[in-house]
Structures are given as structure tokens and as C-alpha cells.
């Protein structure tokens, strides 16, 4: 067992980070309140998790711990809730590293009748609440196409290759992103669309963006896919791909699909890793420096 003296010193050293986290949470809630959002709480334990190609869920008895509150929040959107946000725990099996913890806190917000550019404006407005970002001008908006052509020498939007895309993103593009300012990386290849819709007029591009700060991914946003047919096709494709790679396959969330089938207006939303936001605001390099108890 580790010396209790060392453990106590570690916890005491985290005090400034935990105070910063409190300030961040207060600023976030105040911003959403000012914007007229409803704070919601959706289930943490789910009969089936949101199916994604590369996210594994932690089983909990005969259910699963949520990997994201996304599908339940979209059911609220489909029912007409026009501005909702949630701050709560999410769980992703096996994800542990300087920037990952299997249990972490997610901030998600959604707006009905908007697209990802509106969420980008929200994000910019929210980030202005935090002094360390020192936002004097607009956050740079860089497209995946431009970034890859410049730093990796190919265009993943025109010809997608998942393995090459992920490798070059981590080893060539992320290290080349501007420093000391938040950055929006936008317009992903449709093969990396996840739950985002295709760009009207350019169907090979997905209306998705990510927020980065100093090369660290902080948030991921979509113009939400609201087409029930395409949504079901994507879920089924991921289920096949998961099966082929030996990953656990989860049943489709039929309650969510039924809500889409009944009709859902255009909407957009974003998932922001709160622990990572606190980490970059603290100038820290690892979640160890801002989370009291790591798995």
C-alpha cells in the first residue's frame, strides 16, 4: 500500500485544481441559465448503450453504464425541448491515459432548429467566460481537408482510409494545430461522421467539428443526424464492423430510433469533456493533476 502521507500530500496538492473546477462549473451553469437552457438529467444506467464503432460500454448488472447521454437528450429534443444541457458522469471501458479516465464528466448541450455553426458560436461565447483562453479575436476555424492537405499531404474527405486518417491525425495534424488558442477543426469525412448529418450540397462532408486547445481534443459537435433510415443504417454498419473485429455488439436503441421515426426537427449539439477543460485551464498535462481519484 502507498504511504498515507504521500496520498494525503497528493490530495492536498489538488486543492487549487478542485477550486478551479468549482469556478468552471459555476461559470458554465450561469452561462446556460443566461441563455435560457433547461438543465436535464438522463439515466446513467441504460438497457443498451449508444452504439459507436470504437466505444466500449461498461456492463452494470443486466444493463450498461452510459458512454454518453446523447440518445436520451435527443429524445428530449425530438419532444420539443429546444435548449437543454447536462453535466454528468460517463463511462468508457478500458480508456485510461493522461487524457482519459474510464469514468469522467461530460457537459452536453443541444439546440433545436440550429446547425453546428450555431453550436460553434455557443462554444466561443462559453469559452469567453474563461480568462486563461484570453479570447480577443474569433477562434480559428480549420477544415479537415485543409489541415490534411497541408500537414499530411492527402485529402481524407475525397478518399477515406480510417487507419491512415487516425494515424496522421495523431502524428501529423494535431501536433501542427495552432498553440495557445482554442481551435475548431471542422467538416469531417462522412465516413468519420459518427452521428452527424451530411453537409447539404456536399454529401461527402459531415457537419461535425471538434474543439482543440494546445493539441488536446476538448469537445465534439454535430449538426445532428435526424434521418431515421440513415441513422439505423449507420448503427447496423457499426454493429457489423464491431462483430467483425471481435468487439461486443450492443442491441440498437429502438426507443431512440422510434423517436426519430416519429419526427425530429433539425438540431445540433456538443459533448465537452469537463475534466479536460479544467485540465487545460489549469495548464496541466494530465488528468492526474485535476482529478482527485483516478481509476
Amino acid at each position, binding site marked *: 500500500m*502507498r*504511504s498515507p*502521507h*504521500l496520498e*494525503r*500530500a497528493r490530495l*492536498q496538492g489538488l486543492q487549487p485544481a478542485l477550486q478551479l473546477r468549482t469556478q468552471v462549473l459555476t461559470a458554465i451553469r450561469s452561462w446556460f441559465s443566461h441563455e435560457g437552457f433547461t438543465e436535464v438529467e438522463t439515466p446513467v444506467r441504460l438497457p443498451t448503450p449508444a452504439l*459507436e*464503432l*470504437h*466505444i466500449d460500454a461498461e456492463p452494470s448488472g443486466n444493463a450498461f453504464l452510459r458512454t454518453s447521454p446523447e440518445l436520451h437528450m435527443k429524445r428530449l429534443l425530438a419532444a420539443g425541448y429546444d435548449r437543454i444541457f447536462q453535466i454528468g458522469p460517463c463511462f468508457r471501458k*478500458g*480508456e*485510461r*491515459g*493522461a*487524457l*482519459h479516465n474510464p469514468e469522467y464528466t461530460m457537459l452536453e448541450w443541444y439546440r433545436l432548429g440550429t446547425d453546428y455553426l450555431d453550436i460553434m458560436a455557443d462554444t466561443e461565447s462559453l469559452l469567453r467566460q474563461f480568462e486563461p483562453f484570453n479570447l480577443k479575436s474569433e477562434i480559428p476555424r480549420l477544415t479537415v481537408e485543409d489541415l490534411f492537405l497541408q500537414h499530411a499531404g492527402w485529402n481524407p474527405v475525397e478518399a477515406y482510409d*480510417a*487507419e491512415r*486518417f*487516425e*494515424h496522421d*491525425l*495523431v*502524428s501529423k495534424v*494535431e501536433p501542427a494545430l495552432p498553440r495557445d488558442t482554442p481551435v475548431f477543426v471542422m467538416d*469531417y469525412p462522412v465516413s*468519420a461522421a*459518427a452521428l452527424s448529418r451530411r453537409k447539404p450540397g456536399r454529401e461527402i462532408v459531415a457537419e461535425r467539428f*471538434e474543439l482543440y486547445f494546445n493539441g488536446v*481534443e476538448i469537445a*465534439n459537435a454535430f449538426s445532428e443526424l435526424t434521418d431515421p433510415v440513415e441513422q439505423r443504417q449507420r448503427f447496423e454498419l457499426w454493429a457489423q464492423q464491431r462483430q467483425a*473485429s471481435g468487439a461486443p455488439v450492443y442491441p440498437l436503441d429502438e426507443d431512440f430510433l422510434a423517436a426519430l421515426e416519429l419526427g425530429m426537427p433539425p438540431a445540433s449539439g456538443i459533448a465537452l469533456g469537463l475534466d479536460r477543460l479544467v485540465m487545460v485551464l489549469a495548464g496541466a498535462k494530465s488528468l492526474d493533476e485535476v482529478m482527485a481519484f483516478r481509476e
Partner: protein
Amino acid sequence: MKGLVFMAADYTASDFRKGLRVEVDGVPYVITEFNFVKPGKGAAIYTCRLKSLIDGNTYVRNFRSNDTLKKPDLEERTMRFSHKESDHFIFMDENFEQFTLLDKVLGDNQYFLFEDCEVRVLYHNGQAVDITLPTFIEKVILETEPGARGNTATNTLKPAKINGDFEIMVPLFINQGDTIKIDTRTGEYADRVLKK
């Protein structure tokens, strides 16, 4: 003396962790840094810094979740630390046969050795490549600032020097001349040793 032989087997990326010994292209390595990255919605990438157990040099390599690494074919024998000659550490078995390890292969372990310390030496194709120390060893504090008594609210740790000018963080009540127990797996202070 009969050594223990571990059978070669594969590790998958999910087994990778700091301190794991692996083999790449016939060379034994230890993972000294390990990180998990997930680009966007993509598949996991495991970034490892590997330190060669032959020459102590390090390099960074990325692995995907279905990549595997060989478990190195290592033989383990118990010996005692004899002495140091410049950057070489000399160990001796019960037949007084000597084995040599470089300081950069030993890393921080070199500061935790003491004369006659019983260690388990690992061999790869007949060459000594690494050692495992006893889990806890004792060291005398050679130098540290006097600790402020009663102040447990802040700064409950301070640096203290053991042999080789190696610094370790200790609680404030530890004084120069005290003996402490160190956990060699983490290199951290474990406890104070009270002299009877």
C-alpha cells in the same frame, strides 16, 4: 543453481503498461512510458516509450489495439550486488561469477542498491539485462531541510537526499540521519524505520 525460464508468449496492446518487459526484433525492452490516445471518434492508439534492456536507449512507438508484442525469453537468477566500477554495476552469484549491468539500464534502481543486496537478475540469451530489487529497501537520509513541526495543512512533503544525491519526497517529520523504507516498484517513500 537452476534458473526459472519463462515461456515466450504474446502481449496484446491492452496488456501494455509501464514496467512491462517486451521483445521487439529480438531485443528486450521495458515500457517506461505508456499513453492511451483516441483520435476523435477513432480507434485507440497506444503510445509506448520503450527502453532497450541492452543499451538503455529509448524510442517511442505507436500500437493499435490488435497489435501484439512478444514476451521476452528471460531467465532469472538470484545474486548479490557487489560493487560499482564507473558506469558499470557488478553483481555476483553464489559461485562468485560476475555479471555486469550499465547504469542507464538500471535507471533509478541503481540508487536503491546497497552492498550485498540480494537481487534477481534477468538474462536474455545469456546476457544480464535487468534486475528486480526486493520490494522494500532501507536507506539513510543524508540531507534534508529540518521539517516544520505541526504543519500538516500544506506542503506535507519535502525533498530528501539518499546516496548518489538521489532525491526522494518524504514527509516533513523525516530528519537527516533517519532511515526510511522505499518501495522499489514506484521509487516512492513507504515508511519511516524506527530504530530500537
